[in-house]
């Protein structure tokens, strides 16, 4: 800008000052037709939080039912629907889109110094597809529920269940397209729209994790699409591919399903790892240790994730050869995950650690991911899996990974970027209370389930042996603490929208690009296209001196 005399500290000219992406235009219509990645990210954020709330309510109901060994509040049919909808809502409405579609959409262009994603209208279409899919899923809930479990195993889902399986699976099918389009958009954006000087190795590591995630979204989701189509046709027209009475193979469905759904586990966790990396480096004021190791381990996880789906099927009746191959390959996912863990610790070493709210979430992530990852070794070990498969041990394990790692990273990222997204600071004290209750409640609820599982408690049980009752009750009490924690967090964030102090451009003193524009950013992100001259997380010389 020519008028250098009146620019503010961020270089904003008078015409721009006070304007941002939130107040540029107003009205519902301006939001529904926006192609601004930030607004789309915000709409995704609201949507996934609604999904999280929905899944959370079902989770609390499931836990409440399990308070006693027989009927507590609902009958077996309602219970089966409750755990199915908890799983389906959490996986498809919350975790899969959570970080990439909300935080990713918002920050990916900002972090590479671009004005938008490569295909802004496609981005909006992806949001609409997500909503349409969600409507089909909600329609399924209203018109008879779903009781198949979120895995939709045949022949139960294709022939026996009398619930609205088709509506639910069609919803997931449509949401799959949304996921594909987001991934495709991110890949092209990262290839084509990086600001001058922003080489691949200067990108923040969150973007490497999103890149790896996008690869999985593009490569794996179509297989889910064809799987669900076959399931829908099986149910509607008895085409027989999965139906044993017609010569089909029900185990084949599991291959199809897990070829997507196992990589999907990494669609869920990889962005969480990326967020954790950003948090740990920013709040320890330390450059990331082992940048390339973390970057390549993300891509390695994405690629290896395609080779291990059969570890969900060790007792399914698949061939012994397959099980042995899958077990062997499964252990190799542990290596890049371990490499990340070590490098995160390396990042803390020699830093200046501030225990801000996001940092608390970041440290909790390390703790919970360590447990989630290490307990995965039990399940990858063939003989041990014979005992633990489909018990509460598995339930506890994947909650530590999905909830303890991804959701905690998501909320950490939300606290980290909240000032940038909303332009408001939140009440640190209240946020800490929310965090503490969440962390304690989570471990309380789910560590208990490791004990239940090794002792032989099968999952998806409505009635159970009396001997498990004390531990189940204990777990249920924990879920109340956990629920309270999230409630306080939501109240804290909602209050900040109303009465939070205005956020400065860079409250955490971070080195990455998204903090180099105002909070909240202007619609074009940067007034002057940034030119990158420093490595990732590197600070200008006078600052580090």
């Amino acid at each position, binding site marked *: 800008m020519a008028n250098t005399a009146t620019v503010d500290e961020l270089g904003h000219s008078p015409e721009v000052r006070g304007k941002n992406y939130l107040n540029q235009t107003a009205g519902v219509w301006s939001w529904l037709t926006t192609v601004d990645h930030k607004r789309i990210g915000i709409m995704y954020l609201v949507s996934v939080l609604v999904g999280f709330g929905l899944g959370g309510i079902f989770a609390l109901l499931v836990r409440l039912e399990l308070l006693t060994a027989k009927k507590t509040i609902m009958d077996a049919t309602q219970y089966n629907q409750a755990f199915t909808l908890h799983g389906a809502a959490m996986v498809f409405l919350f975790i899969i889109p959570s970080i990439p579609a909300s935080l990713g959409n918002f920050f990916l262009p900002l972090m590479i110094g671009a004005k938008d*994603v490569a295909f802004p209208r496609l981005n909006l279409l992806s949001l609409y597809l997500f909503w349409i899919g969600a409507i089909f899923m909600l329609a399924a809930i209203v018109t008879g529920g779903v009781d198949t479990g979120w895995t939709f195993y045949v022949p139960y889902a294709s022939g026996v269940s009398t619930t609205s399986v088709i509506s639910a699976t069609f919803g997931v099918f449509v949401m799959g397209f949304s996921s594909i389009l987001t991934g*495709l958009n991110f890949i092209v954006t990262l290839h084509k729209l990086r600001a001058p000087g922003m080489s691949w190795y200067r990108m923040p590591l969150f973007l490497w994790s999103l890149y790896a995630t996008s690869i999985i979204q593009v490569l794996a989701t179509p297989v889910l699409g064809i799987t669900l189509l076959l399931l829908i046709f099986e149910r509607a*027209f008895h085409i027989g591919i999965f139906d044993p009475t017609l010569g089909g193979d029900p185990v*084949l469905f599991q291959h*199809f399903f897990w070829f997507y759904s196992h990589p999907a586990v990494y669609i869920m966790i990889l962005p969480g790892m990326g967020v954790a990396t950003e948090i740990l480096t920013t709040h320890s004021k330390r450059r990331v240790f082992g940048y390339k190791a973390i970057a390549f381990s993300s891509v390695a996880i994405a690629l290896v994730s395609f080779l291990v789906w059969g570890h969900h099927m060790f007792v399914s009746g698949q061939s012994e050869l397959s099980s042995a191959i899958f077990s062997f390959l499964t252990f190799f996912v542990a290596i890049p995950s371990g490499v990340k863990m070590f490098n995160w610790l390396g990042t803390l070493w020699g830093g200046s650690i501030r225990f801000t709210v996001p940092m608390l979430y970041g440290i909790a992530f390390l703790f919970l991911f360590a447990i989630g990852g290490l307990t995965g070794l039990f399940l990858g070990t063939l003989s041990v899996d014979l005992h633990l498969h489909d018990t509460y041990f598995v339930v506890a394990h994947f909650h530590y990974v999905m909830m303890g790692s991804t959701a905690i990273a998501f909320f950490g990222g939300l606290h980290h970027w909240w000032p940038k997204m909303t332009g408001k600071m939140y009440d640190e004290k209240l946020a800490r209370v929310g965090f503490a209750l969440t962390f304690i409640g989570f471990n309380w609820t789910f560590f208990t389930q490791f004990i239940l599982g090794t002792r032989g408690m099968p999952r998806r049980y409505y009635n159970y042996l009396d001997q498990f009752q004390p531990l189940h009750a204990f777990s249920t009490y924990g879920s109340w603490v956990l629920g309270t924690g999230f409630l306080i967090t939501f109240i804290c964030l909602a209050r900040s929208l109303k009465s939070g102090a205005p956020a400065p451009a860079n409250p955490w003193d971070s080195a990455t690009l998204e903090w180099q524009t105002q909070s909240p950013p202007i619609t074009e992100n940067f007034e002057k296209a940034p030119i990158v001259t420093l490595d990732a997380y590197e600070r200008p010389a006078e600052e580090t001196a």
Partner: protein
Amino acid sequence: MSAKAEALGGAGESKLSPQFHVAHHFDKADTQFDAGRMGVWLFLVTEILLFGGLFCAFAIFRSKYFPSFVEAHHHLDRVMGGINTIVLITSSFTMALAVRSAQKNETKKTTLLLAVTLACAAMFLVVKYFEYSHKIHDGLLPGGNFTAADFASGHPGIFFAIYFMMTGIHGVHVVIGMGLILWILLRNQKNEFSSRYYAPVENVGLYWHLVDLVWIFLFPLLYLVG
């Protein structure tokens, strides 16, 4: 499909030929062109894996019910399948030429070639219609709907399940492709394309070639070797 729609970037609204407006978030036309095409290629990857699931099912059940697959494939009409192969290859050829004439600013020729492509696609569907109605009449249907009595081998319904799923999904792609071709044909008539901006033509072309590519594998597997 939508990938293609977006492949224009934000350029759709502008006055295009001879100079069109580069979308604000791209630095130059060439980047925008490349981005669009990369998006389409990534989209084609998803198409390959979508059909891939069915190819996987084909491989597994062919191995499991081999005699049934051999017997069932004799009930498919090689002549109709062969005609459709030639029709689709021809359409691919005219589509490729349409892209070429768009590159060379030959608007009228582009329109003509797109129209021929469209006609070929329609013919493909007509032949498909006759094939389907014949199968339905004979009771050669998927799984539980299979009613043809004179089958010696077990589980022919599986073959026809795969046949109908594969050709059905392929047929849906042909229909979507026709919509896309029609759309660029109309835009071409409004003189929106030029040698400097023909990305939509090229990207729809890529999609159409993929539809051809899938058929190139479907035809021998289903009709010729079973």
